[in-house]
């Protein structure tokens, strides 16, 4: 995890809130560093993590995780991490006989109506077990990323329903947290992706938006991060708080600074 990002969010693994939905989005840049941050954050917080990884392989996340101080292989072996490797599992759907519905069953079906099998997988992975295993702090669902589900043919309402049911199970019933990544198509006029992004924004308690610089590529400033705290059910007397910082991604950390205050230009 990135300590500077923890400072901006005013949180630590010991003081992680519960029952929250965090939305990560990126536009004109790669926001996957936020996924790696929250994966290592919640593993270090001793939470049970279900990671639906549809974009990269397990070894990719493991290599980056080791730079951030977590070992995904060991976490998986001790039962703290349930990892759905989408790239590998999608092949299993086609070439292996399935006795039970596969989480990615929708890839086989011509008119896949919903993502209920994927929801059942998440629910099963995070349900509390009482067989003498180490008690984990709270369950966490991490999804990287939801936009690819639209690309694979799912409708936006089906994806929103999947997140709705995950919110009910993870955030409301189990008092856990969810972190999901959605790409912002910006001027590509992808209506379904915009509905997905806006629909999730209305449900989120925290929105982290990584944006590329309007002026283009810069060696010393890789982008800017907008942080928006929301209270979907709280009075507007307490206004939602918003911060914007620029950042530079290094080998094992990310440094954040106020706009125009990069150490390279001071």
């Amino acid at each position, binding site marked *: 995890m990135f300590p500077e990002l923890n400072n901006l969010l005013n949180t630590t693994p010991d003081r992680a809130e519960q029952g929250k939905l965090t939305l990560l989005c990126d536009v004109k840049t790669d926001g996957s560093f936020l996924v790696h941050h929250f994966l290592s954050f919640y593993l270090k917080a001793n939470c049970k993590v279900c990671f639906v990884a549809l974009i990269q392989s397990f070894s990719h996340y493991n290599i980056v995780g080791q730079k951030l101080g977590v070992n995904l292989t060991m976490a998986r072996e001790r039962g703290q991490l349930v990892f759905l490797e989408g790239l590998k599992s999608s092949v299993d759907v086609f070439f292996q006989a399935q006795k039970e519905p596969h989480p990615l069953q929708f890839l086989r079906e011509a008119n896949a109506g*919903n993502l*209920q099998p994927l*929801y059942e997988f998440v629910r099963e992975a995070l349900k509390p077990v009482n067989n003498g295993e180490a008690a984990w702090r709270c369950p966490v669902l991490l999804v990287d990323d939801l936009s690819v589900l639209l690309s694979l043919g799912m409708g936006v*309402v089906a994806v*929103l*329903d999947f997140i*709705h*049911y995950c919110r*009910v199970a993870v955030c*409301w019933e189990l008092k856990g947290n969810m972190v999901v990544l959605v790409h912002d198509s910006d001027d590509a006029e992808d*209506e379904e992706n*915009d*509905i997905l992004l*806006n*629909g999730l*924004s*209305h*449900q989120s308690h925290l*929105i982290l938006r990584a944006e590329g610089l309007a002026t283009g590529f810069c060696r010393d400033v890789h982008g800017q991060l907008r942080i928006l705290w*929301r*209270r*979907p*059910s*709280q*009075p*507007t*007397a*307490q*206004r*939602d708080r918003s911060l914007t910082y620029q950042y530079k991604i290094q080998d094992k950390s990310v440094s954040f600074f106020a706009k125009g205050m990069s150490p390279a230009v001071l």
Partner: protein
Amino acid sequence: MLDLLAVGGLVLLRDSVEWEGRSLLKALIKKSALCGEQVHILSCEVSEEEFREGFDSDVNNRLVYYDLFRDPLNWSKTGEAFPGGPLGALRAICKRTDSGPVTIALDSLSWLLLHLPCTMLCQTLHALSRQDVCPGDSSPVRQVRVLGLLHEELHGPGPMAALSSLAQTEVTLSCTMGQASAHIHCQRPRQRPTHQTQLFSILPDFSLDLQEGPPPESQPHLDPHTPPVDPMAHLTFNLRLSNKEREAKDSLTLPFQFSSEKNSRLYCTLGQVRLPVTSSMSQMLMMTWTKKTQMTT
């Protein structure tokens, strides 16, 4: 804004990610409940505990809650799902038999619009909001008010226009001069549409605190379908001066504005000729005159 509760029919609360509308919906629900009305709530987006949070027992006791949050599509197969799904829940509200003024809150219309055909939803809303007329029934006419929360970024112009045509009142939430504001567009039958902007804030107990609005000449005629843009939203500097800053600015003497004393010091006397010159030019002339004088003597 409290006039919204005085009329029946459909009231659309249009919010956005930046300006959420659930707190205003809860404030209006609280107002209705404290007026003695029965309030029916169809909740699709938040849990019952989260929705009731902040209401005291006087309000909570008057709420009839229809929970579509826990299992709206019957995925759990536990029998806890609402029979008939979203449409069944709406029809259950239509069939209620309570008398007296009623407020029906839909949280949210956006969720219903994403899961039901627009025409079916509009027909149901029309039936809900027109239940003040009971044909063939001798019971007194009762006032029905439907409050619908709508996330305007989620829908295209067609469904938005359809819902707008059904609504008697549209409230669009945004920001005016850094303050939460509601742009209210009322369209009642056989009356001219009215526009109004109201600044407000909602207190922690969901009481509505109305503030004095902006001066009438500064209120633009707003199209309720386009969100107003606040030019001061993201400025990193102040556009206005306080009274103290203005006085300091007015009393400041600028370097190129000369007082009469300074003016007279800059005049250079060359023989009997007085020439108004700048200080650097006067120095140059003095040096030239001094040299010339030295050369001739």
